[in-house]
């Protein structure tokens, strides 16, 4: 699942500077007001880059279920870090290993997997045509989807209609923004034969969305039905188009 909203607030860096932040700080802990007062450690560099303490969402006060009165937004990071009902921010000099941090713990030799949490990789998905939908017949279609990245704004989206052999540049609907959904489209004339649609995106720091096969190769694991992507899965999503126009999951 993915969602995107417009958030309004105060830069966390502004608040920290007002408090006289000193150079020795390396982490901060953000804590919510809910029953278990969930707390996560995050790098102070992220706080000084683009975190905001948000009071507005889509032009109105943040709703209760979304964190009223204040929610910490940590653009591009995993959802759990976006602390709802923000109660306190504590600046510290080490990773604090509270319960949420314990939940991110990886085995000693899995430092690469640990590195893949926090920041979300570049990801895109075609929403039309997609699994469960039905094309009425051959002819002209606008293939459309969403792309985003925790690395910043999406710079390029490409679409393949032949299972990843040839890639075609897609167009953007509007200007892609940092850490936000970008809507893309590709004009396609379907000849009525079997096809496999894929999309891949590249973000502003040059990260390219990988295929599952590429990820398996990186981890030196067999690419078969048992393979699952370690960490957050930002792999390419293929959709299979059958001759009758039915659309199914290309990974299944």
């Amino acid at each position, binding site marked *: 699942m993915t969602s995107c909203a417009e958030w309004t607030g*105060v830069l966390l860096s502004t608040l920290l500077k007002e*408090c006289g932040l000193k150079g020795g700080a390396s982490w901060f802990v953000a804590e919510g007001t809910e029953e278990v007062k969930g707390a996560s450690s995050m790098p102070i560099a992220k706080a000084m*880059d683009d975190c905001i303490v948000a009071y507005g969402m889509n032009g109105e006060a943040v709703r209760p279920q979304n964190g009223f009165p*204040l929610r910490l937004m940590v653009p591009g990071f995993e959802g759990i870090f976006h602390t709802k009902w923000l109660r*306190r921010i504590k600046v510290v000099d080490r990773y604090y290993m509270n319960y949420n941090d314990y939940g991110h713990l990886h085995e000693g030799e899995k430092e*690469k997997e640990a590195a893949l949490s*926090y920041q979300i990789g570049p990801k895109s998905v075609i929403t039309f045509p997609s699994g469960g939908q039905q094309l009425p017949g051959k002819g002209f279609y606008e293939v459309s989807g969403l792309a985003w990245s925790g690395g910043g704004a999406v710079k390029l989206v490409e679409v393949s209609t032949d299972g990843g052999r040839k890639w075609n540049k897609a167009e953007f609907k509007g200007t892609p923004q940092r850490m936000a959904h970008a809507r893309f489209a590709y004009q396609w004339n379907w000849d009525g034969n079997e096809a496999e649609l894929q999309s891949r995106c590249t973000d502003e720091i040059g990260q390219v969305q*990988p295929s599952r096969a590429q990820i398996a190769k*990186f981890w030196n694991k067999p690419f078969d039905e048992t393979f699952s992507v370690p960490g957050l899965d930002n792999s390419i999503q293929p959709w299979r188009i059958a001759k009758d126009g039915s659309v199914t999951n290309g990974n299944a």
Partner: protein
Amino acid sequence: MGTRRVFLIAFAFAALIGVSALAQGPTYGVGRTPTAEEIRALDISIGPTGEELPTGKGTAKEGAQVYRAKGCAGCHGAAGIGGTAPNLKSKDPKNPDVWARGRILPLRAPFATTVWDYINRGMPLNREGTLTADEVYALTAYLLYINDVIPEDQILDAQSLPKVKMPIGDRYASLPDWKPRTPRLKGYPY
């Protein structure tokens, strides 16, 4: 109202990082320095050094009583195993590979302070924050004892708890030096 809350939160940590007391923010001239008592009341995030731990103490024997009296057994099982909530005792406690003993908080946590912190902030379900410091020390001692981390008669308090050697040692992945606007993992097939 939102703005007012922003600055209360912001100024709550000025004193924590050893900044000399600022009456107001230097640029926007708002807020005030919280008192030590105000900070202490909010400061439930216990780090590995345990510097935030309150006074109090407890042993495993006392903790076994608290475990029954506070209803822990109802969700976590009579002896920390077999309930509907996460197990608190390993089913495979002798496995030489600590990671293979299971995802058991009072066994896998790298610091005993993590266990104390979570009981204190998150338990018991629907009555969070009602345990006394003594009860949290006692429960922590009990859970560490049933996982063979500490002896039954060890007294846990603000001084002894951070010194408990957890079985995992440093056998967990360290996080990379994370820098904004850089790829999350170099060489990953982007």
